[in-house]
């Protein structure tokens, strides 16, 4: 009898052990790329850390294909577009339930979009990108202040909270009417601002996760510590292999690498400073993944500045930079030189477009012509981002050969943001990663639709009307050669006038544990737990 009891105990313990090992195996631990999320609410999501949670927990009418990044059906299984390109009718997928078990219907979609006009939820720019061309959005939002009249305080107009252009047609059908045809509208719908939450869910403060339909649910958010996700038992799609996820807060990239090497992280950042060591280590280099980002690191110019207002000086600086050297040394090869707006991967990218090939004789000629035969001193502003500071210091070294003394003025991010918005600078570094893969999202760098660019003179420069007209034409043209030609023309005009100084298109490196198969990181650089296979 005693022996039987002992055997049962041993078998029981082994079972518990096996179950716990299995549970352990189905769990994945990663770290946030920057710090920690600011919100769990997709409507307010604005940082990469916010997006990481939102994109694994919530879904929109459409999603992007993880490889091609083109829009594919998600909560809407099909849609029709009117001939004039203004009216989209989406048919919702059958059998979709939220994580609380309730069924998705058109009222949830209407609720999710209307909710974005509530100023109290801290709606982010991605919601603006989704809805800004939808009929009724402007009326539903709080009124805009007039630019240039001191502290911008909105008029106390209560928002309508209902967007007339989003209508429920049937239980499973929603109609969205645009004020002008926007080709990228379907792509924009894949942004977190377009994610659908259950009617009535989503608190005002973003700390309570809204009820969504995605493959995971938020179990716990421990401040400055971790966010824990678990597989959504009511998920409408294929159940993910990874059942438990812990996303830790480890802001120091080098600490993340140490954690990865110690085996306590499955995915970590791989900062440029660590790349030579990682590449020389056979085990680590086999786990190194580098994904080109649709980005453009560039210098925004104060076009009103006495020195930088002169196109000859702007061009001189653009021609003096040794971009390849910066990429080889500082970025350890992570990136390609940028000569224009569009990164490789966009249909508008033209490998032969190279207006800023390094030419030091031309630099000296331009500077002499501009009245600086003995060289010129310029100042570039930046925040304390380590990579960017090293890039700018390397840039200063390369342009010094042509008689340009480039002073790098690095301040706290909040100080730099304030000065950049007021444009109290000659020029400043801009790390621009595209929100969605459409050339129009890169042209934004030239448009006077935000205080920072207005104050830097992007609205008053002589080519501004031409760029704006082409932009308005391009955004409505169907995808194809004609549309691409319009956006390339914008690029040509902008680079001719050197409205920005492009430096490089970046790439992001991560260490990904060899036990993660499938597609742990999609081509947008987002970690996708549901796409992982456990080896």
């Amino acid at each position: 009898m005693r022996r039987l009891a002992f055997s049962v105990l041993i078998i029981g313990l082994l079972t518990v052990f096996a179950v716990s090992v299995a549970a352990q195996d189905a769990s994945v631990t990663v770290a946030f790329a920057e710090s920690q999320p600011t919100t769990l609410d997709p409507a307010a999501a604005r940082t990469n850390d916010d997006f990481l949670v939102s994109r694994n927990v919530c879904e929109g009418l459409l999603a992007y294909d993880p490889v091609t990044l083109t829009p594919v059906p998600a909560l809407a299984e099909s849609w029709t577009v009117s001939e004039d390109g203004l009216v989209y009718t989406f048919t919702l997928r059958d059998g979709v339930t939220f994580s609380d078990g309730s069924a998705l219907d058109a009222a949830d979609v209407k609720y999710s979009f209307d909710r974005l006009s509530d100023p109290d939820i801290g709606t982010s720019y991605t919601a603006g990108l989704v809805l800004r061309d939808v009929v009724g959005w402007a009326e539903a939002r709080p009124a805009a202040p007039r630019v240039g009249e001191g502290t911008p305080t909105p008029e106390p107009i209560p928002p309508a909270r209902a967007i007339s252009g989003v209508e429920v047609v049937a239980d499973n059908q929603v109609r969205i009417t645009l004020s002008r045809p926007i080709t990228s509208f379907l792509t924009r719908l894949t942004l977190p601002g377009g994610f659908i939450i259950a009617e009535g869910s989503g608190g005002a403060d973003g700390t309570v996760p809204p009820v969504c339909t995605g493959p995971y649910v938020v179990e716990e958010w421990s401040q400055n510590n971790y966010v824990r996700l678990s597989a959504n038992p009511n998920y409408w799609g294929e159940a993910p292999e990874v059942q438990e996820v812990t996303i830790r807060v480890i802001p120091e990239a080098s600490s993340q690498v140490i954690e990865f090497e110690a085996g306590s992280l499955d995915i970590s950042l791989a900062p440029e400073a660590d790349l030579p060591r990682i590449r020389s280590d056979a085990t680590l280099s086999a786990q190194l993944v580098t994904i080109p980002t649709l980005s453009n690191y560039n210098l925004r110019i104060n076009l009103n500045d006495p020195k930088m207002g002169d196109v000859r000086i702007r061009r001189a600086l653009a021609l003096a930079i040794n971009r390849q050297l910066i990429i080889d040394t500082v970025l350890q090869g992570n990136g390609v030189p940028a000569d224009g707006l569009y990164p490789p991967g966009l249909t508008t990218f033209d490998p032969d477009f190279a207006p800023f090939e390094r030419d030091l004789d031309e630099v000296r000629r331009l500077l002499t012509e501009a009245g600086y035969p003995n060289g010129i001193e310029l100042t570039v502003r930046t925040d304390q981002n380590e990579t960017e500071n090293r890039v700018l210091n390397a840039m200063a070294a390369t342009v010094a050969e042509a008689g340009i003394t480039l002073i790098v003025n690095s301040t706290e991010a909040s100080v730099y943001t304030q000065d950049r918005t007021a444009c109290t600078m000659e020029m400043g570094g801009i790390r621009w990663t595209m929100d969605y893969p459409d050339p129009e999202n890169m042209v934004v760098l030239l448009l006077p639709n935000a205080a920072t660019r207005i104050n830097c003179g992007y609205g008053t420069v002589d080519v501004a009307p031409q760029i704006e007209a082409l932009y308005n034409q391009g955004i409505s043209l169907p995808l194809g050669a004609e549309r691409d030609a319009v956006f390339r023309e914008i690029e040509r005009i902008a680079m001719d006038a050197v409205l920005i100084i492009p430096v490089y298109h970046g790439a992001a490196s991560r260490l990904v544990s060899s036990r993660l198969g499938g597609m742990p990181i999609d081509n947008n650089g987002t970690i996708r737990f549901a796409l992982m296979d456990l080896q």
Partner: protein
Amino acid sequence: MLRYLIARLVQFIPTLLGIYVLTFVMIRVLPGDPAQFLEGDRGDEQSLAATRARLGIDEPLTTQFWIFFSDAVRGDLGRSFITRRPVADMIAQTFPNTAVLGICAMLIAVGIGIPLGIVAAIAHNSIWDNLSRLIALIGVSIPVFWLGLQLQIIFGLSLRLLPVSGSGQPAHLVLPSVAASFGMLAVLMRITRSSALEALTQDYIRTARSKGLTQRRVIGRHMLSNALLPIVTVWGTGLASLLSGTLLVEVIFSYPGMGRLLVDSIASRDYPSVQGLVITFALIYAGLNLLVDLLYPLVDPRIRYT
């Protein structure tokens, strides 16, 4: 004693008020706009204005002060600009972590620093004394961030004995506590050594020895009790500075404490968080100073508060 305690508590009020006003003004005098920080380069004028209004920073400074202050008096520290959580909740969540880290670090510092100081004093000018002085010198000279990284590399990466960062289990506390304790350990050791040395030259020690008392009794009963006063003073202020000084340690070890929260809050100009955290740190400092003062009569019966 009770009257003294009440008087000290009453003195807290203007101190806290002063600190509150100073923090309120200083964080706003710093360049940097929280709304612009939140909106970044992507927000248009409309969303920037909406954010300003939501955060309440479009109001005149006096109105803002009144709103924040009257809420604070009622115990409401407001909501974080960044995470939008109640600041009191954020502090309640991070304070225990910082307190545990501070106490562990102090236990290490006291547990090693005081015995080492006594040994150094007794074996004055011996190899042990020199060794302890070397440790003290290293302790006060090594920057905590460097020490933290070395501990991570040695014990986390090479030996794989301890977790490199994070929290939740006792093992997570070891490396940050050691890193945080090192400076304090050195100071405590030096103070113990010098005050013990001073006590050892006193007449009562000679008398005790001439009475034939054992070395242990002379040290424990006569020397240590007289050398304790400066040690308690350093200990009290040291514990307070440890709590706030764990800031760098918390950043290096990704430890979810108040120090790291304060660093993040200042960087993002999260006014309510900064105000709430600074007031909490001020309360901790003031409370610990009071505690030290109350401990004096226990250590030295000649001290009396009336």
